[in-house]
Each structure stands twice: as C-alpha cells, then as structure tokens.
C-alpha cells in the first residue's frame, strides 16, 4: 500500500463523509510514519484531524494526542481545535467534565455550531434524551440549513417510536437536499413504519425514479436494479400488499392510494426477480435468491 494510494483513500473518505475509522487509521498511520502529511500543504490539517478522530474511535489515544498536538501547535486559538480537544476529553473523562467544558465555551460564544452539536451528542449518549431533544430543536430553529441536525432529530424521534415527528424532520431534510435519493428512501421507510402506506408507496416510487431513470436508449427490461433501487422495489411490494389487504385504510397525510395496484405489484415483482437473477462478481448467484423468488410469487391480498 503506497503513500499515494493511502492519501487517495483518505481523500475519498473525507469526500463521502464515511466513518470507516479502522481503515482511516491504518492508512493515516502509514502516512504519518512516512511523514507524508508535510507534502499535502493545506490539506494536511484536515487529514490530521481525520486521523485524530479515527484514532480516538479505534482506541489509539497516543496517535490521537500526537495529531492533536501537531494541529494545536499550528492553530493556537481556533474554535475547531477547541472542538477536537473536547472530543478527546469525551473519550476519557466523565461526561460532566466534557459538558462543563462545552458550557464554558458556549457561554463565551453561544452560536458555536460544532460545540453545540457535541453538547447535544454527549447529552444523548448519557441518556438525557429529552434535554438533548429540546436543545436540538432549538439548534435546528437557529440553524435551519444544517442537514445533519435535522437528520439527528429524525433519528432521535425514530428511536423513541415517534415516527410522525421523525417524518416531519425528514421532510425538512428533503426540502434542503432535494436531489438526494437516500433521504427520500429514509422518509419512505419512516412513512411505512407509521402505517401511511399510500404516502410510502409514492415515495418509494420517487426513489426508483431518482436512481433508475436512465437517459440512454437502454430499455427498462434490460437494466438491472442495483443498490438502493432494490430496497425501494422491496418497499413498493410491501406497501402494495398492505394497501391491498386493507380496503378502507386512512392515510394520515390524506394521500390517495395508487390506482393500478395490481400492475405496480407485478412490476415490483419482475424488477426484484431481475435484480436477484443477475450474476454478481465471479458469476455467483445472489444470496437469498430462492427466498426472494418465493416471496415475490405470493399473490396480492
């Protein structure tokens, strides 16, 4: 594994916001040992930050302290460094110490986004969910465009089984990032869990539209659904089944049920069969293919 490939992997993880701490730690340690960070120039500091956070996650606090020292030496009074110090404190000290540290910083500057987020995270982690919820609601009121805040709100509500509130939070996320099919999928599944099947089936079909709409001349019959499209087709089939079972169901968002439910069901079944029939890597058959075929073949209602 060369220095160049390690740096590229770190950059990809940064761009995609993934939290693959073990892999980041492995690659980052290689770069650190070969003193590759100096070559990056300005990018060196965000890479060091990434390595520091991954080391804290993996439990190697010695490397984390090393990186933090390098960063703190270079940026003396930075609020971002304060946040990193706070995270390091969270890993070893009791939560009250970390909360007091954050409270001090927020007193000086009450609009510090990163510190506020850390405070809410510590409150949630230590079980004070209601307090975390109140603070988070205040946070998203103040910073409306922060997608992470709305997603965290949706997650907290979903963990407390309040799926309607979770859906409302997700609808704000959809307003802020309308091009993202992943959040539409999350909203569709939340709607399904709160038993609003007509809305759920509409959103699942929106996900299919967003991810599978091909501009090329390739016919729908010839393209294989991949990735979250398969998950969306599963959702369509589940919703169609529930709508068919329950003739007079009321949707809490007053969405009307789709007209050609039987046709939708058939289409979803066919798409799932295609998805599980294509041979994957090395020509192997997809796992669970028989179960999927059997389930998909059961009639509606």
């Amino acid at each position, binding site marked *: 594994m060369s220095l160049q490939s390690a740096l590229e992997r770190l950059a990809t993880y940064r761009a*995609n*916001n*993934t*939290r693959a*701490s*073990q892999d980041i730690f492995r690659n980052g340690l290689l770069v650190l040992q070969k003193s590759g960070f100096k070559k990056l120039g300005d990018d060196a500091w965000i890479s060091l930050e990434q390595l520091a*956070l991954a080391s*804290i*996650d*993996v*439990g*190697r606090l010695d490397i984390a302290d090393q990186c933090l020292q390098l960063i703190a030496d270079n940026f003396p009074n930075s609020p971002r460094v304060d946040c990193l110090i706070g*995270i390091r404190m*969270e*890993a070893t000290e009791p939560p009250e110490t970390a909360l007091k540290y954050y409270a001090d910083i927020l007193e000086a500057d009450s609009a510090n*986004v*990163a510190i506020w*987020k*850390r405070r*809410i*995270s510590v409150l*949630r*982690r230590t079980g004070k969910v209601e307090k975390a919820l109140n603070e988070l609601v205040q946070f998203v009121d103040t910073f409306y465009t922060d997608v*992470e*805040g709305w*997603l*965290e709100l949706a*997650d907290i509500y979903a963990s407390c089984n309040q799926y309607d509130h979770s859906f409302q939070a997700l609808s704000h996320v959809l307003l802020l990032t309308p*091009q*993202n*099919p*992943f*959040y539409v*999928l*999350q909203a569709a599944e939340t709607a399904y869990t709160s038993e609003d099947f007509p809305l759920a089936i509409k959103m699942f079909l929106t996900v299919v539209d*967003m*991810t599978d*709409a091909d*501009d090329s001349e390739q016919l729908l019959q010839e393209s294989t659904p*991949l*990735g*979250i499209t398969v998950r969306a087709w599963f959702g369509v089939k589940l919703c169609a089944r529930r709508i068919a079972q329950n003739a007079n169901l009321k949707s809490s968002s007053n969405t009307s049920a789709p007209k050609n439910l039987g046709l939708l069901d058939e289409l979803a079944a066919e798409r799932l069969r295609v998805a599980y029939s294509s041979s994957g890597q090395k020509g192997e058959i997809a796992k669970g293919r028989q179960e999927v075929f059997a389930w998909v073949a059961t009639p509606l209602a």
Partner: protein
Amino acid sequence: MIEKLFLTLATLALLHAAYSTYEHLSLLKALGKPEGSLPLDIVYESILALILGLLGASLNAPPLKDITWASEMKKRTIDGMDSRLGFAHYKSRGKFLFASPHDGKI
C-alpha cells in the same frame, strides 16, 4: 503512452525550431541583411509541432466524469449519507474491539 510521446516530440520540435530561428537570425545579422525571411522548413517544423502538441494534449486528458446527480449518488452508500459526523459518539466499544491483543488490559 503514445500521448506522452506526441507531447515530448512536439516540445522538442518547437524548441528545435526556435533555436534554428535564432541561429538563422544571427546568420542574417552577421551577413548584414537583417530583414531576410525565415526559411520555410522552420515554419513547417513549428506547424508540425503545433499539430502534434494538440493531439498529445487531447489524448492525454484524464477520463471524463459524469455530471448528473444520479450518477454521483450511485457511488455513495447509506452509511456515508447517514453518518452525521457532527453528532457522532466517540466513546464507543471501538477501544475494546480494536485494541491490540497484546495490550494486556481491557
């Protein structure tokens, strides 16, 4: 491979044409007729260098990327989209799971 060859040839040809022009002009100055015209083969060499350079630069360009959102989203994962790194918990079981087995203390 061939693109880099084209680019190298084009650069060398251009440098050679430039040096030839300099030599020709110093020759004209020495002979006392500074308004003489440039010999045609130097002109042809420069035009050849231009064509070769264009070909080499176009072929040497990095592969084209898609511009649609859908194609970008195909490369992402749910874990990446839902990571919420600002709110991440850093006191996790990672310390115990990934500690080296020879550490001795758990």
